[in-house]
Every structure is written in structure tokens, then in C-alpha cells.
């Protein structure tokens, strides 16, 4: 019973955090963009403009909802819902921190520790594209349709390379469970000879895999340089051209949640998740609950850094063209990720003999 309460509480907290992060990521995006462009950014709504997301949200709620006459109404409403739900669901298998302890019972800071966590992430993420697809198709607008088609083909091509790059990580940890992958990145000997504490991260073993995974994550989140499904200058708004009011808000929100979650997943896979130097020492001296919060903080900070990184990239580089994107996905990233798998396998067998 207690575990149920804990899990429900965790789900609620994660839900709120995701939403809060997404809301403030919109603000962060605007501020980051502004600073990179020598501007100030929103600063009128509240001190430093921190109420900006609230203003935006309120406005969107109060805006008139337009459902085009020519659209498929059910699907039109379903699209943003699917997108939002899937983006929120992904966070379920992420180990957010070390275990908490209440009354001598340990509670893992993870909604569901399923032993195929990674596969679950993949499954849910690939469902997300249905949200875009359905929304774009139901709008009955050519720009939206083009955006939807671009989105789905992009997702399909990049998921492959993403999966291949992950296989290398799975080979190293020998498990599909995210918890195992994270714990294996704690203490140990880096490259087999440098003793480290909480820094035995996969990034040091899998730099190429990381880059491939990162690029694919960009593509999965529809962020520049892969924001073809919604690029302003070509498709106006892409798949969400016809959406107004909060349905548009859901799309925009979900995009930022996706960014946050992929930041968290990247951290878990390559940057040690909640591990940080000195974690094992602290857990011996401090209350486990405080340690759990600290480790959660570490993961959170890493995820936020990646959100920033996403924005940084967005405001720096141009986007690809559709055919170049396909070429990059199939002709460069996929072979590279296969090579990565082969290399990893070779090295593993060579050294672990």
C-alpha cells in the first residue's frame, strides 16, 4: 500500500516537474535566444519576465478554439492529446535518483522498474509521432500534411540509428533495464585502470555512440537542425498550422517535455544518470533521503543542461533539407552506428577474454 502511495506521489511530482520544466523551458528558450542574439528577451511580465509562461498559458486557455470545418474533428482533437500523453509517459522508467527510505522500507525513485526499460522508451517515443501524424493529417491542410509526412519519415529513419547506437550501450551494461545501466556507471575503473567515483560514465567508452544518439535525439524532438516538420519559413507551422488555443499549447508544451525527457535519457545512458562524483561516499554519511534528493538534483541538472544544449544548437545552426536529412540518417548515421556496435563488440570480446 505504502509503495502505491509513494508511486502515485512520484508520478504526480514527476508530472508537475515535467510540466513546470516545459513551461519554464519556453521562457528559457526565449531568454537563451535573446542572450545569444544580444537581446534582453521577455522582461515585462513580472520581474525579469518570469511570469511570461503563465501569461502565455492563460492567454492560450482563453483563446478561441477553431476546429476547421474540413477537418476530421475527432482526430483533430486526438492528435495533440496523443502527443502530450506519450511525451509524459516516457518519464516512467527513468531512475530519477537513489532509493528513498521511509520507515526502513526502500522505495526506488522510479515509477516502474521494468527490465526492458529501454525498449519501453523506444516504444512510447515512436508512438509520439502518431500525435503529429494524426494532427497534421486531420487538419486537412497541405502545409500540415507536408509537415506530418516529414515528421513521420524523419522519425522512422532516425529511430534505426538511435537503436543501433544504443545497442552498444546495452552490450556494455548487459541489461535492458535503465536502472542497471545507470548503476553500472557509478564507481569503478575508467577504461579499466583509472579508479573513479561516480564518474564511470558511458560517454568515455562510447563517444561516437553518444554523438549519434544525440543527433537522433534532436531529430526525434523535431528541433533544429531537424525541425523540418514545423519549420516556420517553409511550412508556416507545419503540422500545427491549423491549431489554435490550448491544442497548440499542448503541442508546444509536449515538445519541451520531450526535450527534457530526452535530456534525462541521454544523461542516464551516457552521463551516469544520477551518479555524481562522491555519491558513494555521501550515501555512507548522510540520510538516504537527502542523498536521493541530491542524486535527483544531479540528474535534473544534467537534463537541464541538455535542454540548454538543445536551445544552444537551435540558435546557432541552420536546418537541413529533407533529402539531406534522409541522407544523413541512412547513409551516415546508420553505418556509423553499426560500426560502433562492431567496434564495441570487438573490444569487449578482446578485453574480457
Amino acid at each position, binding site marked *: 500500500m505504502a509503495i502505491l502511495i509513494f508511486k502515485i506521489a512520484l508520478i504526480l511530482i514527476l508530472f508537475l516537474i515535467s510540466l513546470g520544466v516545459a513551461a519554464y523551458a519556453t521562457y528559457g528558450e526565449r531568454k*537563451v535566444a535573446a*542572450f*545569444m542574439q*544580444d*537581446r534582453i528577451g521577455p522582461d515585462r511580465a513580472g520581474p525579469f519576465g518570469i511570469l511570461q509562461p503563465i501569461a502565455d498559458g492563460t492567454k492560450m486557455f482563453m483563446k478561441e478554439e477553431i476546429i476547421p470545418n474540413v477537418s476530421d474533428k475527432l482526430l483533430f482533437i486526438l492528435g495533440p492529446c496523443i502527443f502530450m500523453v506519450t511525451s509524459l509517459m516516457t518519464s516512467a522508467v527513468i531512475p530519477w535518483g537513489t532509493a528513498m527510505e521511509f520507515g526502513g522500507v526502500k522505495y526506488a525513485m522510479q515509477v516502474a522498474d521494468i527490465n526492458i526499460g529501454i525498449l519501453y522508451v523506444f516504444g512510447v517515443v515512436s508512438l509520439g509521432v502518431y500525435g503529429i501524424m494524426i494532427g497534421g493529417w486531420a487538419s486537412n491542410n497541405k502545409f500540415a500534411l507536408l509537415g506530418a509526412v516529414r515528421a513521420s519519415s524523419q522519425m522512422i529513419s532516425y529511430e534505426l540509428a538511435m537503436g543501433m547506437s544504443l545497442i552498444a550501450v546495452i552490450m556494455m551494461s548487459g541489461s535492458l533495464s535503465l536502472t542497471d545501466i545507470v548503476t553500472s556507471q557509478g564507481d569503478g575503473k575508467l577504461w579499466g585502470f583509472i579508479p573513479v567515483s561516480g564518474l564511470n560514465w558511458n560517454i568515455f567508452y562510447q563517444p561516437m555512440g553518444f*554523438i549519434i544518439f544525440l543527433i537522433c535525439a534532436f531529430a526525434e524532438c523535431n528541433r533544429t537542425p531537424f525541425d523540418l516538420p514545423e519549420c516556420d519559413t517553409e511550412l508556416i507551422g507545419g503540422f500545427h498550422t491549423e491549431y489554435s488555443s490550448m491544442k497548440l499549447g499542448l503541442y508546444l508544451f509536449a515538445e519541451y517535455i520531450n526535450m527534457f525527457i530526452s535530456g534525462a535519457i541521454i544523461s542516464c545512458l551516457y552521463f551516469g544518470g544520477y551518479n555524481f562524483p562522491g555519491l558513494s561516499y555521501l550515501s555512507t554519511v548522510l540520510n538516504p533521503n537527502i542523498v536521493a534528493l541530491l542524486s535527483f538534483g544531479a540528474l535534473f541538472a544534467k537534463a537541464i543542461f541538455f535542454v540548454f544544449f538543445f536551445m*544552444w*544548437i537551435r540558435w*546557432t545552426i541552420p536546418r537541413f533539407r529533407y533529402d539531406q536529412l534522409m541522407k544523413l540518417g541512412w547513409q551516415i548515421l546508420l553505418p556509423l552506428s553499426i560500426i560502433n556496435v562492431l567496434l564495441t563488440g570487438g573490444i569487449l570480446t578482446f578485453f574480457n577474454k
Partner: protein
Amino acid sequence: MIQLTSRSKVVVDKKMSFKEKLYLPAIAKGMAITFMHMFKKAATLRYPEIKREFAPVYRGMHVLKRDEEGRENCTACGLCAVACPAEAIIIDGAERQKGEEHLYREEKYAAKYEINMLRCIFCGLCEEACPKDAIYLTDRIVESSYTRNSFIFGKDLLVEKMDDRIDISKRKKEYHID
């Protein structure tokens, strides 16, 4: 390729070096640039609070000048209205009556002087056309408003207030005639 002069040179190089082919170096360089800009002082002026200084010759809202004794300079000759490409100026002239010498400098004066600020393109031709030192454009901007009628500026808004003289000496042109 057709060569017409001897002063031309092909400047485009479409061959990518290996480093350029790698994508990442150029991206990293770009990211470094944008990152450095994060710590630069923003170029922004917070406009309604901090106002940018305009050039002294800026062509903003018009003013109908008075002379040192506070008399209106305008003599309603109509040259400004003729010179206006937007035909935004309407003048009604009237004869100066006895006892009004302290109000108007010339024998004729503009009983009605209206500029339609929405039509006006602030080209400054009226200022140039004025032979009587009467109309000037100033470095003040015309504020936006809610109705079209509120942009018809009559003499009440245009004639310079005695307690708020506008210095236009910097606008006057200097001619170096040898």
C-alpha cells in the same frame, strides 16, 4: 562565364575541405560564437523607459514656429501644402486684423493649419519649402493612437508653446559658400 572587364575575380569556392566535411568543427565554431555572445552586453535599449537619442536633423513631428516675440511665423503662403507629396497639409489663410500684431508676424496668417499625420511621410519637403522660417520637423515622434481622426493635427498641437520652445537651431543648414 562571360568576362567583360578585367576587374573581376571568381570568389566562390564550393570545394569542402575534409574538416568542413565533418560538420562538427563548423558547428562547434558557430556554437562558440553564440556562446560568447551570451556574455556580451545586450544591444537593446529598453525603449519606453530609455529613449534613444535621435540625430538633430531627425524628421519627426512638425512644429509651427513662433519668433522671439511669440508671434507666429506662418504667413499662409501655401508652399508647404504644394510641396507635400502626400497632400496632407490644409491651410486656410486670413488677413491679420488691427491689434493682432502681437499674434502674427506677417500680414496674413494661417487661420486653419492642419496636417494629417497618418498621411504624412515625414519627407521634410515642407520644411524646405517654407520661405518664412515657420514650419520645422522636430526630433519628436508622433505617437500612435486609436482613431484616424485623432491624427489630424490642428494649430493647437502644431504651434509651438511659448513655455515649451523647441530648439531647431541644429536643423538649420550650413552652407559653406566661398
